[in-house]
């Protein structure tokens, strides 16, 4: 089964679990300021079959922007609370957005899918326009131009709330290229998610630490990861 999956770029559910664990470990030891990925298990009603179902979660990725002009939320009430002498009154000097990323296995596409959402510090969810303002230029370019990045607003399969998602159709095709072209030093399926994330992460401004990608690929192919998506116009 593993060989078949290498050929067509897809991933089985069990292999997803293996790949997820591998990503967690590699990420933890990598040099990055981002928090760690956690595996969140999901328990269905027991069917008697042992099943490692769950998803990967990366939460509280903060995006801090200093803002000279403070967007004051509408003053709902005139009165403010008085504080005692032992309380520090803080004036926020920066705008903080927090992002959460979940990697969830799609049984129908047989691929991982990236779900994400952002919210302001007090919990108010961010609209897609707000999120795109936070994204770096290379992400915006990828979203605008690439045939493979399409963001939709869909129900999260486990949390049952609408989250943004990178549409998974086409994933198998470019994963086939990516994995097929870089078999050297690439134990499948452990590094599937690292390869996959190194491509889709670019669309949402999530940079995979270079120590992860270089452990998976030789130098030549790691430099072409970002470009392979644009190389083949027939895809």
């Amino acid at each position, binding site marked *: 089964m593993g060989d078949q999956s290498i050929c067509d770029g897809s991933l089985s559910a069990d292999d997803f679990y293996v790949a997820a664990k591998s990503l967690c470990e590699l990420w*933890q030891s990598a040099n990055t300021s981002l*928090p*760690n990925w*956690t595996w969140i298990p999901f328990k269905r009603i027991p069917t008697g079959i042992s099943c490692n179902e769950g998803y990967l979660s990366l*939460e*509280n990725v*903060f995006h*801090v922007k200093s803002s000279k002009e403070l967007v004051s*939320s*509408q*003053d*709902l*009430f005139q009165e*403010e*609370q008085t*504080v*005692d*002498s*032992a*309380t*520090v*009154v*803080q004036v926020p000097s*920066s705008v*903080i957005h927090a992002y959460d990323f979940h990697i969830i296995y799609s049984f129908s596409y047989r691929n991982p899918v990236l779900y994400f959402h952002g*919210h302001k*510090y*007090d*919990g*108010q*969810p961010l*609209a897609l326009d707000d999120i795109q303002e936070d994204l770096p230029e290379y992400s915006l370019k990828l979203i605008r131009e690439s*045939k493979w990045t*399409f963001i*939709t*607003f*869909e129900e999260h399969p486990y*949390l049952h*709330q*609408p989250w943004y998602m990178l*549409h998974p*159709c086409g994933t198998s095709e470019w994963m086939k290229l990516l994995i097929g072209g870089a078999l050297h030093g690439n134990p499948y399926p452990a590094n599937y998610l690292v390869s996959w994330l190194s491509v889709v992460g670019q669309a949402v401004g999530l940079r995979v630490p270079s120590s992860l990608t270089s452990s998976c690929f030789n130098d030549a192919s790691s430099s072409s990861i970002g470009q392979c998506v644009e190389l083949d116009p027939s895809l």
Partner: protein
Amino acid sequence: MAENRTWTVSSPPPPPPSSSSDSSSERQILRFIPFQSSADEGFWRRLSSLKLDTLGLDQSPIPITGEFFSFLSACFYAPCSHPQVPNPLKLMAESLPDDPLQLVIGNRNKCPVPGTLYNTNTLESFRALDKDALLKMEARKVKSLDFSIFDDIISGKADEDCAVLSRFLLISFADLKKWTFRHWFAFPALSLEPPATLVNIQPASKVFSSEEAKSLSRACNEWRNSNMTAGVPFFFIVIASNAQVTIRPLKDWEAFHGDGEKLLFGFYDPCNLPSNPGWPLRNFLAFICLRWKIENIQFLCYRERRGLADLELSLVGEAVVLLPQDWRSPCCVPKAVGWELKPKLMNLAASMDPKRLAVSAADLNLKLMRWRTLPSLDINILSSVKCLLLGAGTLGCQVARMLMAWGIRRITLLDSGRVAMSNPVRQSLYTFEDCLDGGELKAVAAAKSLKRIFPAVEAESINLAIPMPGHPVPAQEADNVLKDCELLQSLIASHDVVFLLTDTRESRWLPTLICANESKVAITAALGFDSYLVMRHGSGPRPVSSDMLDATCNASDKTGDVNAIATQMHKLSTKNEDRGQRLGCYFCNDVVAPIDSTSNRTLDQQCTVTRPGLAPIASSLAVELLVGILHHPKRINAPGEISSSIVGSSDRPLGILPHQIRGSLPQFSQLTLLGYSSKSCTACSDAVVSEFRRKGMEFVLQAINQPSYLEDLTGLTELMESVNSFRVDWDEDDSDANVDD
């Protein structure tokens, strides 16, 4: 109880020499950074569904007054893990468990603290809540059911469950029509008078030797990694003389016998700043002072990075706390502070309003189509085009549904009938209920049905019978019929596209004429028993200038002066030919004028009984044809194309844009055909349209009452044309001179 025991402990390290005993006035007041609060979307969804569920019940859970419900819930926080960003106290969906008595389980990232939520039913009662009184209740209990910090400390409950020291309070008002949530947090803290003073505070790395630092980090990481202690936010730290560090829960204090070790009181600090501790320390200091009678307190603000203790970020400090006098009396009500400065408003309409979600889901299909295969799809034009559907029967219902599937949202349905018992199986917008009590008006029922399917559709209904030629009207009805004609004309003028989906041939005449006059996009679908026709009408004659119109009038007033009329007509035709030949309309192929069709059936006439598969096929083709027109640069003037056997013969992504499609079910075949406007057409020819322009509705009434009128009119044109051409021939060829006209 606990407060009667006193314990001796080894004294904490002496204060640094620089601060003498009477230098308290030189010390700063210890100032704390308040919690940041965050209530995420999941929490509000959960609250909304709880509220919707309990509203139906008579008994409300733990009511305080009749004005609001209160819920026991939990917040979550964790030690700060980012140098720039403090960790907020978070409300999440798990904050409101199904069973309020159920233990809320946290993990290393989500340390649960208990609290109370008061949710009011109206905005007024939200504003009227007495916040001072609520805060006081948190400080010292009023009724037996309440929880309070002071009582938890003196009763020893805080020893066992120290998370109660960080309890919270939340008042909220949920507006479930607008999906907005007003809320106001409080983090009640016992206020010390006089306030605690700060001796010193500095990063933990500066205080410990490297041995101690290593041991402390290891002990902290163990504490954080163990399921038993990861969610325990307060503890004390013992540093032995051999630099071995152990962390102990608060309940171990009573049994603890000091032996000259250094002691630190540690807590998860959500704050990130280097010079002030976070809010949890306030109640912790009050606890230590009140419970254990310690006045010089060394504390550790525990903070971490990437899951490991970070002694650069963490702070160690020393504070001096004096027990307020009035706390010693058994019935004191200690002062408390803790309301956030301002209430907040959260707007979740975009993700919770089901109607909005329906719209974005419907748009998603179109966007996916555009993204994957049709980049030239113009979604804006589809959502802005306004369609008028004449007829809400088998064709009308299907066309309406198909329009919605393409993202077309502005639909007007016109029909004069009522839903009959035979309708629902074939007319896809109606159900059995619509037939009862004589039957709902079709147009109205259809519009309602569209809105049930997709609430964001702009569906209008018009109850109108289209006046038809060959069905003469009595004189007393003439005014009403005129009004109906005018209404129809204004409807057509105010829409972008007209679908002719009625069940008789003659009812299509007037709309065809009006559309030709205004060059409105008109699409006809007509069914035979087992065949169908779908076609788009061509444009109408170009509107003439007023001079031309006058000249034509003058010419026709002089009876017999046929030459003048012919010349004018000829000029009109020439003008039209500048744009290329106009495509034909539904009537262009007819030889006879539309008359009462009950006796004269042709292939194109609507039969009362047709094979059911035809209507959906024809309707779908009609809508696909419309989308093709909308995406063609020439729109109504787009030339008609015929399907060819050469695969991929069209450059355009949607394919060819035919003029007519005729299909046959017995053959399962379909043909594309092309026909041009006929000069004798009773609906769109120059003669008819110009008469209509000249005489308006009077002309229409005449046509309605005298069907031969149209024939005469168009017959006259043909005659004029042939006379004109006859004269030309006369000049060229003598032998034709004797031909009679």
